[in-house]
């Protein structure tokens, strides 16, 4: 393995590694635009220049392989000057419309300019005007004046999504990135191009102009959109979530995530959520706190179930954490309940070859594992039949969080709600709540995946533990908490949600109030 010296520090790298990779392994600063660890090398931005002792002249770090004994630096005055001029060239035709640009705050041009700005540009030519606000389909908008022609997005559609929509047309200072005849960029991974675009040329229709990025906090979690379980970062403020972006994990998702996964955050936000527990034991709905509801359920149902456990069943979806399944199955055991049913509207082995899987539940494997100690899971159709025949009187449902992929959601709700006692645990509200068929219906608000810590087991059996990100609905419970209360025990913790590790006290530390 070759050894080299970078800015005076020695480092050993893999055979064939490039200089920029060596910089990255040392977390040493190096300016660059076109290089991306998930794409091929283009060497077009010319910003990653370094001095290599004994070389003819400055070299680009992204396309120079480290050789044993190389002495490399990017700290010399000459290199800094080259980068400064490189920056100036990138800005010749750039519109500098940062105040109205959605990328501001996370823009490569701004970042490098802070370090290598010329601050006194010497251009006295007119800027070349190019097209702004080019509609590239459902999710992406292009501003080709802002583009620095790094070709990352083009390489992404050529090499990763393999859909080849993007190209660089024309030449010289007329070069413009785009699709043929402005056709829509409607591949299943299109927003990744927005992520890797180092400037504000490609922006996301969903996110643009909704928040300045510096007003958002972010934290890591796992996408609950399908059984792949891509690692993601959720961006939020006190109102809720605004977007998610992929986080690198070689084993699971590499650098990318799919477009459907980008929409998941929407179900987490208040407008889609069940905010309070609801009860209908006659003809009227009443609202109460989740904790109170669980206590009342304990008082009215716990003993009844224990006396005749064979008349009770639980319907589970693969959208909860392993820890929650354990709590549920432990409670069932205590009650003597043996009937558990698996509800999955998206049961399929489909795989698109990159990330997207047909099973739209993040934790079907985890559910199966937890259930294996408990006994076989029957299908949700069995539950519906048992209710219709009257052999099941009490049904508890762990409803899906990602409703959009549950095509039979309303129908299943209607069928299951024919049970005499019907307890629905769920994060979301839907209209079908009004149409319950049960004479004793309970709706319990449950925390969404970003509001709790836990583990999902993905399609390959990989356990991925994630941490609490933020609180959206303060009054919701996790399934584990709900089970504790159902058993008549009290929740033994501070009723305040945990603050983010980086901040001791702030408005994200939501008081959970009276549970």
């Amino acid at each position: 393995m070759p050894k080299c010296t970078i800015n005076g520090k020695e480092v050993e790298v893999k055979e064939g590694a490039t200089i920029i990779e060596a910089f990255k392994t040392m977390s040493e600063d190096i300016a660059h635009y076109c290089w991306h660890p998930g794409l091929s090398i283009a060497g077009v931005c010319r910003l990653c220049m370094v001095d290599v002792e004994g070389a003819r002249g400055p070299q680009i770090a992204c396309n120079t392989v480290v050789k044993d004994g190389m002495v490399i630096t990017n700290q010399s005055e000459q290199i800094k000057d080259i980068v400064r001029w490189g920056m100036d060239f990138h800005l010749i035709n750039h519109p500098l419309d940062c105040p109205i640009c959605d990328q501001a705050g996370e823009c490569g041009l701004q970042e490098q300019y802070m370090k290598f700005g010329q601050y006194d540009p010497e251009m006295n030519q007119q800027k070349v005007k190019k097209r702004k606000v080019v509609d590239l389909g459902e999710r992406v908008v292009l501003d080709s004046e802002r583009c620095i022609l790094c070709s990352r997005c083009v390489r992404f559609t050529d090499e990763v999504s393999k859909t080849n929509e993007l190209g660089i047309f024309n030449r010289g200072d007329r070069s413009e990135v785009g699709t043929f005849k402005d056709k829509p960029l409607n591949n299943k991974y299109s927003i990744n191009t927005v992520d890797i675009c180092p400037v504000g040329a490609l922006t996301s229709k969903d996110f643009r102009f909704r928040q300045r990025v510096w007003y958002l906090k972010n934290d890591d979690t796992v996408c609950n959109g399908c059984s792949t379980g891509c690692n993601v970062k959720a961006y939020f403020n006190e109102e809720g979530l605004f977007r998610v972006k992929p986080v690198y994990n070689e084993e699971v998702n590499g650098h990318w995530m799919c477009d459907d996964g980008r929409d998941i955050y929407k179900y987490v936000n208040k407008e889609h959520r069940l905010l309070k527990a609801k009860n209908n034991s006659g003809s009227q709905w009443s609202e109460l706190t989740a904790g109170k509801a669980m206590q009342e359920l304990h008082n009215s149902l716990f003993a009844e179930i224990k006396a005749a456990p064979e008349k009770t069943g639980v319907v589970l979806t693969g959208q909860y954490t392993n820890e929650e399944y354990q709590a549920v199955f432990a409670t069932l055991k205590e009650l003597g309940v043996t009937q558990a049913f698996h509800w999955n509207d998206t049961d399929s082995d489909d795989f698109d070859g990159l990330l997207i899987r047909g099973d739209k539940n993040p934790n079907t494997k985890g559910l199966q594992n937890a259930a294996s100690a408990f006994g076989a899971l029957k299908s949700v159709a069995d539950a519906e039949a048992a209710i219709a025949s009257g052999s099941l009187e009490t049904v508890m449902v762990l409803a899906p969080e990602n409703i959009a992929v549950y095509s039979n959601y309303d129908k299943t709700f209607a069928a299951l709600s024919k049970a005499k006692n019907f307890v629905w645990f769920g994060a979301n509200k839907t209209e079908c709540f009004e149409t319950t068929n049960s004479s004793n219906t309970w709706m319990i608000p449950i925390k969404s995946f970003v509001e709790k810590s836990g583990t999902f087991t993905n399609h390959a059996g990989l356990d991925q533990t994630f941490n609490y990100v933020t609180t959206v609905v303060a009054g919701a419970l996790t399934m584990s908490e709900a089970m504790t209360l159902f058993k008549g025990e009290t929740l033994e913790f501070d009723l305040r949600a945990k603050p983010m590790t980086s901040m001791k006290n702030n408005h994200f530390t939501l008081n959970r109030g009276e549970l």
Partner: protein
Amino acid sequence: MFKLSPAGEEFVKKELTRYETKRSAIIPCLFKVQEENKGWVSPEAVTYLSGLMDLPEAWVNEVLNFYTMFNKEPVGKLHVQVCCNISCCMNGARELTKHLKDTFNVKEGEVSADGNVTITRVECLGSCGTAPMMQVNDNYYENLTHESAVKTIKELM
């Protein structure tokens, strides 16, 4: 909808096997399309060629847009390209261009009303020793005067 002649399609198929990558065959195939599509390559022709070569439209379009010898707009029966680089300009190429435009009553890059002529200015065509010069379709005409240029074009019409 544009379609190549059977011979043209045969040509494309052959070009596709000629280089290491299919992508390298785009230039000769675009020339073939231009030749059979009255001297220019339309967006429909790009779609057709991309289907025929089984390559993304964006790739074909990149090549088409990069090179100036492909015409992206319709041209007249005679595509007159007047060299306006240094040698030719020093020998009156700009005046010659103006004279031709006036004579045939056509704006630069547009097709004359009768559909016969398109006049464009181009960079050096490598015939500096015989400046000024022009290329009409595939042929060079050199050592031009206003009169000889007009006469040549009229004869070709």
